[in-house]
């Protein structure tokens, strides 16, 4: 194919991204470097004051730190929970493959409102868990599970699991099956094969999954807003509050731009770091 033809085929798509992603993002950044707004347009002098406020004020830094901490917990838990499933999918007979794929991907295939509603019924004061706790006498009155950080972790781990599982599975599938057999022939017990052969080779998958999951977790809005404590305890809920309740679009835009920078830095920076450290056996894996 001639170069001109290829570029012509790509032009509409590039225009789409430029018009619906590039230009709106530029407009958002424009808001963030203006003093304020008049009507729906940024107005006033150019300033970096909103960024200074976001990065200088203890309150906002605390929200950023809290979000990063939660994202870290969610990433770790999802890796621990997803690994056994990915390992199982890797070793399972071929005919189970479709069913297992649907199972592993189901949190992604079901709308987040459905799973959120499900968690409400499970974690609520009169929910499944509390009724079981009361019935067995493990608790004398309902334990508060809904609208807590725990509920955010449960809900988000559920949603991000497919990405972690698929990343790990992709790495496992690149392992030469003869390696494990060789280790077994030489008398290595199962746990040693897992620890010394399989896990190190699954590391690129775990690393890729970690990247995706962490960036999804810091930028999630629906789960913290629906399942979490009221008030702004995540960067995203804080941003939304700036727009809807405080009508401070410029400051909200600055926070949104910082969130974008942070999540892009995670995706591209972490992958580069890991590639340099040789975690991804060769070039070309990218951000998976």
């Amino acid at each position, binding site marked *: *194919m001639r*170069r001109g033809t*290829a*570029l012509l*085929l*790509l032009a*509409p*798509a*590039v225009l*789409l*991204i430029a018009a*619906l*992603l590039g*230009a*709106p*993002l530029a*407009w*958002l950044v424009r*808001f963030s470097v203006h003093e304020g707004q008049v009507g729906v*347009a940024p107005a006033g002098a150019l300033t970096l004051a909103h960024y200074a406020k976001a990065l200088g004020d203890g309150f906002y830094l605390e929200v950023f730190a809290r979000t990063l901490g939660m994202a870290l917990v969610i990433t770790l838990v999802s890796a621990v929970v997803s690994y056994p*499933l990915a*390992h199982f999918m890797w070793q399972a007979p071929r005919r189970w493959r*479709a069913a297992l*794929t*649907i*199972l*592993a*991907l*189901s*949190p*992604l*295939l*079901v*709308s*987040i*409102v*459905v*799973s959120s*509603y*499900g968690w409400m*019924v*499970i974690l609520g004061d009169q929910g499944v868990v509390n009724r079981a706790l009361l019935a067995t006498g493990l608790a004398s009155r309902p334990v508060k599970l809904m609208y807590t950080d725990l509920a955010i972790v449960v809900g988000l781990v*559920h949603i991000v699991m497919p990405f972690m599982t698929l*990343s790990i*599975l992709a790495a496992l599938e690149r392992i030469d099956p003869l390696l494990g057999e060789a280790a077994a022939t030489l008398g290595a017990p199962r746990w040693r094969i897992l620890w010394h052969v399989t896990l190190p080779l699954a590391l690129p998958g775990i690393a890729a*999954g970690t990247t995706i999951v962490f*960036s999804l977790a810091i*930028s*999630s*809005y*629906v789960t913290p807003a629906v399942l979490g404590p009221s008030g702004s305890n995540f960067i995203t809920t804080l*941003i*939304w509050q700036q727009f809807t309740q405080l009508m401070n*679009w410029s400051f909200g*835009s600055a926070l*949104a*731009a910082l969130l*974008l920078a942070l999540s892009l830095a995670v995706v591209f920076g972490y992958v580069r770091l890991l590639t340099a450290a040789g975690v991804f056996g060769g070039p070309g894996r990218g*951000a*998976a």
Partner: protein
Amino acid sequence: MTALHRLVVALVAAFILAPIVVVVAVSLTDSPIPEFPPRGLTLRWYAHALSEDVFTTSALNSLWLATAATALATPLALAAAYGLVRGRFRGRDAIQTLLLAPLVVPSLVIGLAILLAFSGMGVRDVGARLVGAHVLITFPYMVRTILASLARLDPAVEEAARTLGASALRCFVLVTLPLVRPGVVAGMLFAFIVSFDNVSLSLFLTNARTNTLPIAILNYVEYNFDPSVAAISTMLVAFSLGAALLVERLVGLRRVVGG
């Protein structure tokens, strides 16, 4: 595979399925509050859900939105994927990264940016900004699926058609397109589900008068707790999983989702 591993996997599967199973079970309960395990069995919450205007109107909106977004994204994605696979030029990787960019930018940021930019331009139509946002978010999945299908296509087939005198367009329509059709259909189905189920973008772009189904469900739960939400949710789940099964049959879900 040890017994311990099986037990752990069973627990993980239970965790994955728990919220979905609970919603389906609750939709059948014969009590005015969501109870699990359900007390008695009834389909009356389905009747109730289908008689609620908030659900039926918003479901129709969602249907239109998903159809429009898919219809607009498909030709763009098809052309772009074909250009990427068959074109040889510098900056190919950069363009591919750019086309998949909507997947790495946080939904909240996309939603806000589109909201601000559209109102800045004086476009206050909810439909316009919803379609714009949904095309943007479904497009990368389609590109990815079609790229995967094209990559598995032997270029020799196309070369043969060209050698025998077919024009580039004829070759594309009569040779390439039929061969990648499963990938295109799978991409369309997945795009449709992504749009139909979307909450994280629609939340910022809908308003009190124009809603999508997931947003209507979210709003309903805030003030009502009756099992009709579970009933409408179950229908949504059946719809999404049905489409997902088709995608799995056609090209395999993993090709669409990536990883």
